[in-house]
Each structure stands twice: as structure tokens, then as C-alpha cells.
């Protein structure tokens, strides 16, 4: 049966999966999508996974799916779920293996015409200084004690050692540090994997791009974010906690498997394994997850330092002259304890954002002061051949999605399907013809990350704008790409 027959259409962009769809669902699921996008989800497990999430103890509101939803493991990617802290659960699968995978945008004072003549050199320098892919070595070698400090301090650890500006911390979600990180809850294996990979981008869909602003939709917000209009060059990158976070997740999936038996939690999918937030297992996971999140913020901070150095080196201009201000850093694989309103009452919930970002609106106390009038920036990468967006959270997101929105385009084709579709197409050459210089560890694999593998992120953004969950601010197109 088609999802269109099962879902209840609320309006053009909202579809409800009723609570009686599946036994064990404690709340309905709500999918933000238009009809065309729902049709893309036929034959995929993503909506079924949103239903599975609705069975988790303590879930309140609805199990939410953003329009970039796609098939994950356990949670759908693009899923948001809030659990009551008193009797709800925390699920490592609701955060994902790459704890605090996220994105950053850095502005420059450069115009496209300034960068064009040195673009290849700049892309090569960025590829060296912020290495993607297998075997990439970071610029920092930490000892064990330093790593333990970094897990607790996050981005601040880097800034205090000169890798970044103190003002950077103002524009990182949670100031680049989750409190209550617990190094004792982190395994030796996670430490070893982290030490080897700090300062690297990784493979798969992680990337670093040189982009040019090509459209501004909201001038006031764009100005607040440091965008001065079309033609401006910005840097956009996406990476997470590398092997460190993956090991933490893997370690705690095992802990949670024991926990579900201990706490008698019934689950439709083992990958949803979880424990009560207030249990020793839940607390240990949240402490280790915070360490993983802090590792990721430190990682992105270190990479930011490397990007600034690369730009100074290749342009021959000073740091002051180049600007290189951080616009924002937002996480899209994370669980956060937050205060929200539910049915007119304040509640404390653990919001799982698995492939979804925070999108707090104007006036919210957790929005950095310099953005308080407009809301905090939402960074939405598209694919490497088209465009990415900056957006902003809305009041409606606070009431409907726990202040959350999408995190990207979302894949529509597997790697194999993309390669078959694009057999014989030289993607690097096609991109060069579009004016995009790409440097990849293996150019033959670029088809796996080509535009054809992804939804059009403009559709994703438009659905959220029509649904009132976010408002778009600006669109940027890539001119230089580094990939693993």
C-alpha cells in the first residue's frame, strides 16, 4: 500500500501518520513534505522508522520527520523526537554514530572575481590543511590528558590555544560545549580513534566548499549574519566527531541492549536501543555523548583555524583584511536537554535531532545576542553541484518541531544507483564546465555524491518555508569543493 493511502493529509506540507498505524505507537508521527517528496519515499523505510520512533517510552508531541527525511538505521535521518526527562528514554540511535556531526559557515571580504584566479590553488591548500578522506592527518597531536580536557571544554579548548577567536564561541550552538561531559564514560578505544583523527574532515558526504552568495531573500537577517550580498565568497564545511563519536555510539549501543532487557523496554528495531534518561546507563551515555559533541566542536574549531591560515596564505592578505568571521556552527546529530512548551505548559525534554538542526527564532535566550533580533542561523548544505542555503528559525518551529528544522538535502539514490545512472560521465569535468573546481581523493567516485544522488535542497527549504518552520535568508553556490 502507498504511504499516500495511509497518511492523513493536514495541509499541503503536513502529513500525519496516525497513532493506530502500528501497535506500540505512543504518539502519531508528522511528516513535513509535499506530495512529490512523499512519492520519492515510496519503497523506502524512512516513514516506517518514524513510526518506530513513536513507540519509544516518554515521547511527547509527535515523532517528527523533516522533508529531507531518508532511510537511516533505527531513527530516520531527518527525524526529531522529544522525550520527557522524568520517564523518557535517550537513544544513541536517535543521535547517530557521528555524534555532533554539523556544519559551519565562515564569511570573507572576498568577491568571486578576487578568488577565481587563485581558486585552484586555494582548493588544493584547503585539501592539504583540512584533509578529507582515508589516511588524512590532522594538524594537532594531543596527549591523553589534553584529549580529556578537550572532551570537557569543546571549542574553547582550541580557542584558548590560539586556534580561533574568542568571539567564535558566541556563534557556536551551546557555545561549542555541552556541560556534563564525562571523560570517565568514554572508552579507551574511543580516545585512541579520536587522537588519530582530530582536525580531519572524513569521507562520505562530509565536505569543505568555497561558495559564492548568489541570492539574498531576507536582507535584514543576511546583514546580521555578515552577508553583504551576491558575489561574496564564503566557506561552508560539514564534519563531525570522526572515529571518536562513532566508537562512543558503538560502545553505548551495547550498553543499551542490556538496558532494554533490564528496564523491560520493547522495541520494534534493535537499533533503537535506549535507556531511561534518569538511569545510570542513560546518564553515562549522555556524559559520553557530550564528550563526543565537544570533540566535534573542537574538531570544527581546529579546522576553522586551518581554513583561515589557508586563505591568508593563498591570498597574501591579512586576517583582518579577509574578515573570516564565523557565521554559525550548528549540530545535526545530537540529543539536548531543553525547555519547551507543550500544551501551554513548560516541560523539560530530551530532544533527539538525528539529521536535523536546531532552529531557534528571534528573541530566544539561546540565540546569540548579535542574532537575537532575527533568530539563529540555520545552515543547510545542498549537494556539491547546486547550492546551499542559510535560513533562520521561526516561532512556529518552537511550537511544532521543538525548535528544529532540516539539515540538508537528503539522499534519494544509493551510491550504487548514482554510479549506474552516471556511468561514463566525468563528474569532475562536468563540474569544471559549471565553474566548480573539485579536488577529491578519488575523482571516479564523485558520481556517488553528484546532484543526482540528492533531493533538490531548494524544494526542502521551500516546504519548510511554506510550512512556516524556517525562513530562507540566502542561497550560495559552490565554486570549489574538497571531498574524501
Amino acid at each position: 500500500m502507498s504511504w499516500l493511502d495511509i497518511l492523513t493529509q493536514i495541509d499541503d506540507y503536513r502529513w500525519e501518520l496516525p497513532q493506530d498505524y502500528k501497535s506500540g505507537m505512543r504518539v502519531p508521527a508528522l511528516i513535513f513534505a509535499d506530495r512529490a517528496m512523499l512519492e520519492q519515499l515510496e519503497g523506502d523505510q524512512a516513514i516506517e522508522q518514524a513510526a518506530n520512533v513513536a513507540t519509544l517510552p516518554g515521547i511527547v508531541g509527535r515523532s517528527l520527520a523533516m522533508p529531507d527525511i531518508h532511510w537511516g538505521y533505527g531513527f530516520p535521518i531527518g527525524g526529531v523526537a522529544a522525550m520527557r526527562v522524568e520517564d523518557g528514554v535517550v537513544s544513541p540511535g536517535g543521535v547517530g554514530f557521528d555524534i555532533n556531526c554539523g556544519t559551519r559557515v565562515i564569511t570573507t571580504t572576498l568577491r568571486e572575481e578576487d578568488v577565481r584566479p587563485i581558486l585552484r590553488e586555494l582548493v588544493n591548500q584547503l585539501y592539504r590543511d583540512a584533509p578529507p578522506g582515508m589516511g588524512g592527518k590532522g594538524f594537532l597531536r594531543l596527549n591523553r590528558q589534553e584529549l580529556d580536557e578537550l572532551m570537557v571544554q569543546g571549542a574553547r579548548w582550541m580557542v584558548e590555544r590560539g586556534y580561533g577567536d574568542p568571539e567564535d564561541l558566541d556563534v557556536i550552538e551551546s557555545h561549542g560545549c555541552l556541560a556534563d561531559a564525562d571523560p570517565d564514560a568514554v572508552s579507551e578505544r574511543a580516545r585512541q580513534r579520536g587522537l588519530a583523527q582530530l582536525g580531519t574532515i572524513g569521507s562520505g558526504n562530509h565536505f569543505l566548499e568555497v561558495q559564492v552568495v548568489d541570492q539574498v531573500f531576507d536582507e535584514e537577517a543576511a546583514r546580521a549574519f555578515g552577508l553583504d550580498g551576491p558575489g561574496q565568497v564564503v566557506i561552508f564545511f560539514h564534519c563531525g566527531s570522526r572515529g571518536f563519536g562513532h566508537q562512543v555510539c558503538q560502545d553505548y549501543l551495547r550498553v543499551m541492549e542490556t538496558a532494554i532487557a533490564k528496564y523491560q523496554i520493547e522495541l520494534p528495531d534493535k537499533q533503537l536501543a535506549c535507556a531511561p534518561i534518569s538511569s545510570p546507563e542513560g546518564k553515562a551515555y549522555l556524559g559520553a555523548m557530550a564528550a563526543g559533541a565537544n570533540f566535534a566542536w573542537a574538531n570544527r574549531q581546529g579546522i576553522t583555524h586551518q581554513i583561515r591560515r589557508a586563505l591568508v596564505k593563498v591570498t597574501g592578505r591579512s586576517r583582518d583584511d579577509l574578515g573570516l568571521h564565523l557565521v554559525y556552527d550548528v549540530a545535526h546529530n545530537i540529543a539536548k536537554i531543553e525547555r519547551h512548551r507543550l500544551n501551554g505548559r513548560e516541560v523539560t525534554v530530551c530532544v533527539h535531532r538525528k539529521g536535523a538542526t536546531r532552529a531557534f527564532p528571534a528573541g530566544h535566550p539561546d540565540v546569540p545576542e548579535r542574532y537575537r533580533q532575527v533568530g539563529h542561523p540555520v545552515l543547510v548544505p545542498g549537494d556539491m553541484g547546486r547550492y546551499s542555503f542559510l535560513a533562520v528559525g521561526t516561532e512556529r518551529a518552537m511550537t511544532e518541531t521543538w525548535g528544529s528544522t532540516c539539515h540538508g538535502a537528503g539522499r534519494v539514490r544509493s551510491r550504487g544507483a548514482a554510479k549506474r545512472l552516471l556511468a561514463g560521465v566525468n563528474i569532475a569535468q562536468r563540474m569544471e564546465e559549471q565553474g566548480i573546481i573539485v579536488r577529491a581523493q578519488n575523482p571516479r567516485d564523485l558520481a556517488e555524491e553528484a546532484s543526482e544522488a540528492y533531493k533538490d535542497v531548494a524544494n526542502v527549504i521551500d516546504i519548510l518555508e511554506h510550512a512556516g518552520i524556517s525562513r530562507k535568508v540566502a542561497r550560495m553556490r559552490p565554486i570549489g569543493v574538497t571531498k574524501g
Partner: protein
Amino acid sequence: MATARPRYEPLEHTAEAGIIARGATLAEAFANAAEGMYALQLELDGIEEREEREVALEGESPEALLIDWLLELIFLTDTEGLVFRRFLVEELSETRLRARAWGERFDPERHQAHNVGVKAVTRHLLEIGREDGGYRVQVLFDI
């Protein structure tokens, strides 16, 4: 007979990547799953057998052993930079695994990496079963 099928092939998934591996014995299927996991990440042809690592594990089930076997290799790749091309599972019971792997340190000058870097082994879609008189295992990775 299981011989007509490839020893391993990609398991297609929208966001992640996986492997379906087969073998006349379960031990052989486990070894082939490991080879498949590396074939996703780089060209195996360029890897020389300069280093050998032994893996010995205990676990509560074949599923847990399969996950831990592959995780052990991921750990060696992440921390020592080793990539492997040949695998021998010498002992495999319901609760124990002993195996060896041969390969060398990854060298971007000589080795051709793919865009996929396996970071974790998921339980989603995990299957171990019999097929055509042999064994079939299916595993999905986080990449």
C-alpha cells in the same frame, strides 16, 4: 552450491553502504565480509601483505562476533592506518572467533581510496543465515 554467487557484493542503501558476503562455511563468510568491507573503501589490488594482525574475540552470539570482528578491523584502520586485503577466520564457534588479517599501512600515493570510509557497524538489516548449502551474512555500515 554457493560458488556461482560472488564472495561479496554491495548491499544498497540510500544513505549508507553495506555488504552481502557468502561462504561455504560461516568462517569463510565472515572473512569475505571483511574483504567486502575493505573493497568498499579502497582498491584491494594495490595493498601488499606487509603486516599481519591477529584478532581473538568472545561474544554472546554469531551476530555479536560478526560486528566485533569488523569493528576490530575498523579500529586498526583508524588508529594504526592499516588497510587489509586477505582474511582468514581460523576458529569460529557460537561465542568465539580467532582470525588473522594481512595488509599494510594506507599510503595515499600508492593506494586508491574510495569515497566511503566505514566508521561503524550497525545492527540494522544485520542477517546471518544459510543459503544454497552455504552461509550468507548481510551487514550495513555507517560511513
